[in-house]
């Protein structure tokens, strides 16, 4: 069963990446490793490595710290507008980086609303933008786990006199640890390989390994340096995953039952979480409001003109298809990518999420687990150029195939699906499965009665997330999308690169459409979950 996702990974990830690295390191048939010495000798590259790690660590820390209270409020409290809050929390993740970069810079530039902070072009601005994009991952992954957490252990602790803070620290957080670590590792990978955000917010001053690979490949065509940097990037990513798997290994003893806690009404005891949530919501809304404002303004006045223009081809034929057609393409592609990512992710999660009975099995599983995280940690440029030079001959001539874009998006979404499902599966008490087996249930029946009821909700959540990823994915998509079949982010990017107020306004309006589309879709998924599994 594990073979299908492995094969997928091998063909659509490992092969292209290795071929691309091989181009750089194999010169005239012989392996040439002299590039390593040269690259490491450069003071600039050492600075780049340091900045990459520092940036990813700080952004991950901040995203996690701010995301936890939000996850609590959005998934454990009951109040009107909760669905809106949940959808809002996911919105940043799918916003096209170019548009958000410009929205952020509109705010932070000296003439902008927050220009007084003097943050334009600083390292802080990069971190803020990374947090903006990644907080969704924390809210979503941890929130879903939190929602399904059996509240009884906490209730017992409270009845024994533990303060809410003690319950959180000694019962809840340890129980959530697998989900938190999962989310943090995904965020780390996103931050360590961030590209568009880093360039837009900080120019080249705060270059990372990823921007360096881009420059070496696209500008200098120095494949040797690019290969060395790609390997370096993988080393950083793999060592991080190793650290994480060590952390995950510590079991908490807290088990999940079938009864998940009823959501509470917000009260005075939640003040701290509510304040942080309000602050984070304001932080998320600021660039989005700046975007909405720009989409509604033209030559000093308010107007809906940019939205009306979306059904045209832009000033001076900037577009080959209208923004609405691109939105339809996006939805179609997202549907295929979601099905692919969810199906493959489920297979991986079932393989990884089962308890291990021997140490060897455990090591094997964590290696398997890590393998599916790798696509997030490897440069999109390396993968993209790798696609170009590998998947170009029969029987796998996929370069212009309509399947390529959903496949690439599924590769990106797959780790998120796995990360959402694995903590849930891991937290199922294996004794439940053993009891079922003792009572005569076969393996399929055990799976259906023990795993599926718990897995069902997170699976829908994961599918929703995969869809959001696919809708917003730009890097791989722009590399692979066909001109007659572009997605919404690709079209927005095209508009923004053109002269003319009309095109810039349309790009902003397109960004708002994309964000709205995502919020509506996520809202629908939320409803589906409530209706479909209300009984659990």
């Amino acid at each position, binding site marked *: 069963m594990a*073979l*299908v996702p492995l*094969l997928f990974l091998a063909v659509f990830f490992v092969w292209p990446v290795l071929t691309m690295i091989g*181009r750089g390191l194999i010169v005239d048939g012989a392996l040439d490793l002299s590039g390593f010495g040269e690259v490491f000798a450069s003071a*600039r590259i050492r600075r780049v490595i340091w900045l990459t790690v520092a940036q990813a660590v700080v952004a991950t820390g901040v995203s996690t710290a701010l995301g936890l209270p939000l996850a609590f409020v959005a998934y454990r409290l009951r109040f009107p507008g909760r669905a809106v809050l949940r959808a809002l929390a996911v919105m940043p993740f799918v916003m096209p980086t170019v548009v958000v*970069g*410009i929205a952020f*810079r*509109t705010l932070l*530039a*000296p*003439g902008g609303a927050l220009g007084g902070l003097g943050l334009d072009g600083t390292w802080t601005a990069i971190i803020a933008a990374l947090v903006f994009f990644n907080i969704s991952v924390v809210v979503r992954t941890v929130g879903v786990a939190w929602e399904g957490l059996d509240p009884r252990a906490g209730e017992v602790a409270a009845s024994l006199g533990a303060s809410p803070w003690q319950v959180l620290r000694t019962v809840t957080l340890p129980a959530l640890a697998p989900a938190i670590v999962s989310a943090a590792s995904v965020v780390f990978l996103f931050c360590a390989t961030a590209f568009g955000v880093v*360039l*837009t917010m900080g*120019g*080249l*001053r705060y270059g990372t390994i990823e921007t360096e690979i881009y*420059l070496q490949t*696209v*500008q*200098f*065509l*120095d494949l040797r340096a690019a290969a060395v940097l790609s390997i370096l990037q993988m080393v950083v990513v793999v060592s991080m995953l190793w650290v994480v798997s060590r952390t995950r290994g510590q079991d908490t003893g807290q088990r999940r039952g079938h009864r998940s806690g009823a959501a509470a009404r917000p009260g005075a005891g939640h003040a701290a979480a509510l304040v942080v949530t309000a602050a984070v919501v304001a932080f998320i809304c600021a660039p989005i409001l700046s975007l909405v404002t720009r989409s509604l303004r033209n*030559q000093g006045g308010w107007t809906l003109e940019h939205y009306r223009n979306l059904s045209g081809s832009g000033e*001076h*034929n900037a577009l*080959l298809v209208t923004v609405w057609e691109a939105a339809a393409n996006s939805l179609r592609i997202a549907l295929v990518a979601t099905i692919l990512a969810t*199906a*493959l992710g489920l*297979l991986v999660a079932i393989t990884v999420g089962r308890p291990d009975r021997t140490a060897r099995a455990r090591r094997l599983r964590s290696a398997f687990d890590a393998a599916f995280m790798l696509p997030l940690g490897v440069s999109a440029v390396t993968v993209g*150029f790798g696609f*170009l*030079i590998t998947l*170009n*001959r*029969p*029987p*796998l*001539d*996929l*370069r*212009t*195939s*309509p*399947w*390529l874009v959903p*496949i690439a998006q599924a590769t990106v979404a797959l780790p998120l699906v796995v990360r959402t499902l694995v903590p849930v599966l891991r937290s199922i008490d294996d004794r439940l499965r053993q009891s079922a087996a003792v009572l005569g249930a*076969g*393996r*399929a029946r055990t*799976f259906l009665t023990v795993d599926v009821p718990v897995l069902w909700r997170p699976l829908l959540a994961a599918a929703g997330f995969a869809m959001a990823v696919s809708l917003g994915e730009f890097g791989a998509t722009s590399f692979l999308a*066909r001109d*007659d079949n572009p997605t919404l982010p690709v079209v927005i990017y*095209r508009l*923004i*690169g053109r*002269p003319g*107020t009309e095109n*810039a*306004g349309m790009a902003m309006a397109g960004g708002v459409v994309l964000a709205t589309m995502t919020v509506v879709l996520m809202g629908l998924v939320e409803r589906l979950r409530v209706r479909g599994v209300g009984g659990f």
Partner: protein
Amino acid sequence: MVKYRRWCGVALAVVAAIGVAGCGGGDSARTDGDTTTVTVMTHDSWSAPDALIAGFEASTGYKLRFQSSGDAGEVTNKVVLTKDAPVADVVYGIDNTFATRAVDAGVLSAYVPGDLPASAAGFALEGDGADRLTPIDYGDVCVNIDDAWFADHGIAPPRSLDDLTKPAYRGLFVTPGAPTSSPGMAFLVATVGAFGESGWQDYWRALMRNGTKITSGWSDAYGVDFTAGEGNGTRPIVLSYASSPPFTIPKGGSRPTTSALLNTCFRQVEYAGVLEGSDNVAGAHAFIDFLVSREFQASLPENMYVFPVDDAVALPRLWERFAKVAPSPITVAPSTIAARRDEWLKAWADITSG
């Protein structure tokens, strides 16, 4: 569980099979020996009126397929990387800063269209490149100024590259960076051409001391930092194109509020070429003939904001009046650019990030 397992495997195998089958199917890639489709690799700015494309397809019987593949640099590098199994028949969008790299890599086959406009000769490459790449269009990358801002503030606008380093213009200039933006690269080359190999670095140090801001791309330099862009910019001097001013004619107005400094321009020339190993050489030739035809040349200004190499083609009215070309742009030989580009970029990065 075993049954369940097998079932899943089968289902996914089916999905995978459909995937692979779908890929090999009818409307997919250019397959070997396909002589009815012409696959064109272009930069992201490609744009042409539908009617012209339909006309080409109707009169030649070829179907056109476009693959936009990033900026001029990415297009060139993709062409070089896929030398063994070319992904297209013809490439359009390699510019004079990258031309030599493509020619030297031997990825282009010789072709000169029979009815190349006489004025195109002035844009032809020297040496090997002359018959490998056909010039199609050109555009001048120039410093633009917001005349309205300078009038409002009662400051005399700058007139030359040297002026940009003067205290009066401190903190007023924004330009996209050379490694991440092709106009940014063109400006770097312009400064090399204007100040020479020995002087350009000092010029950039002076620019940086004078508070020059560097963004990653043209769109956020013009759209966020420039005072006449769409944002609330604070910098009235920006690096853009000679064709930008007509876009700043206010609604109801008749004159642009910005202008280009024509003595600061570097001329970017864009070329098309037939890829070595193309399986539709005749189709590729027909497409290049089409690119230099009167009709296509006339569509260039309105669609890609560039000037046609054919000087017999009439320009749009607004262009005639407000989008002037530089009378004598700053020039650097493409072969020099190809040989020195990497070193320039590295030195530039040290100066601007230090």
